[in-house]
């Protein structure tokens, strides 16, 4: 179980999360920030439910409290050019 990959983008295993939690007695938010779980290319779109569940189990926190795995734009990775909005009116 410990070697199960939870966050594919950042290659974080269940064991990594448990180890960080144990070492620093961290809040859910701190575990996320220290491990980078959910902070990779997919922005948590793949792993968020799993990470939420694991961190809630470890810390006994309410997941809605502090987990910064919130949904924010862009909803998926977008190139700098597309985001730059070239060709659009400047006003």
């Amino acid at each position, binding site marked *: 179980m410990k070697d199960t990959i939870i966050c594919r983008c950042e290659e974080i295993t269940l064991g990594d999360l448990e180890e960080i939690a144990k070492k620093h007695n961290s809040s859910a938010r701190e575990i996320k920030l220290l491990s980078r779980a959910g902070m990779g290319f997919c*922005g948590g779109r793949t792993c968020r439910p799993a990470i939420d569940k694991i961190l809630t189990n470890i810390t006994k926190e309410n997941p809605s409290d502090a987990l910064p795995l919130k949904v924010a*734009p862009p909803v998926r*990775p977008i190139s*700098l050019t597309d*985001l730059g909005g070239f060709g659009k009116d400047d006003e």
Partner: protein
Amino acid sequence: MSAKNYEVAVIGGGIVGCSVAFYLAESGLDVILIEKNDIASGTSSRCDGNVSIVDKDPGFDSHMSWVSQELIEDLSKRLDRPFEYRKSGSILVCDNDDEMQAAVDWVKTQNEAGLKFNVLDRNDIKSESPFFADDIPGGLECETDSLINPYMFCYALVDKAESEYGLQVKTRAEVTNITKEGREFKIQTTNEDVRAQKIVNAAGVWAPFIGKMLDVDIPITPRKGHILVGSRQQPVMMRNVMEFGYLMNKFGRERIADKRTTEHGVALVLEPTESQNFLLGSSRQFVGYDPTIDIRVVETMARRALRFFPKMNDFKIIRAYTGFRPFTEDHLPIISEVKEVPGFYIAAGHEGDGISLATGTAKLMEEIINEKTETIIPKEPLSFDRFKKSEVYA
């Protein structure tokens, strides 16, 4: 029930509050750090990690940054937890020949103050990153600038101060009211009350709300900024880069830029992070405390990035976030006692310089509270009184 009485309560668990709590606890005082959410959950995790002199006004501002850099370097050796400290210097790039001339003058002034600045020419800029536009006339570098991960730094400070200097930390404790009873403060929070002889208000952009509880009017305004996170694809460059126009925006000086760039206060900042991603900034707006991501501002920022890095057109942006800089009228923080309320101190109002100036701020606050006669930097330019004086002449 009588709550425990601390010598100092620091309100605000951002980089300033964590640094202040660290130095106060280290000096032997009995200190508690009170934070309404979690450590580094406000501005200090919605920013970049520049510990820079490159963007500071020559003189007091740059001197204070230099002192802070020395303190961070010292802490990089003393703290147990790493905080992604990278001392690689940083650069400014110019958009046009006018800016280039201003940059040459800027280097001269900073050199005269003994700071390690160098002019960079067209070729120097190209060797910094293969993605830079060909028509960038040049720029400058500051050798001593460094990068840190701000939230890792906060954790490292708190961890060390808790385990070795007896710091108490209370998170998820929003301060709801403060009353003064004799010589001590009663601080009501959503997670038990705290009693303390002294209070340091390090609540950053929320410092005015704490001030109001003691009828102290603190002139700090939120200045919103956006940051985009770019995904690791190919290494962009090794060190932090800003455009010269960033200085113009920050200090409200005249700048050659299109209407939308000016309106959104957009200027390029690119920070390579330890994870190999990169952060792209920046915007500056006075729009209250609304944290919504404004897609039009994001577009303007992406455009501005492409002005300097046209070859990054297919780089992917994976996240965006906003934060609030605690702005003061004269771009300097308030690091001061409040004469009207003895025992009440302010360490806030760093605008975009909180990461750069946190350690210098904290050391000075420790010296003020411990009533030391000599301070690491002069305290007069940072006094709370300076705003009252300006009112008289207004």
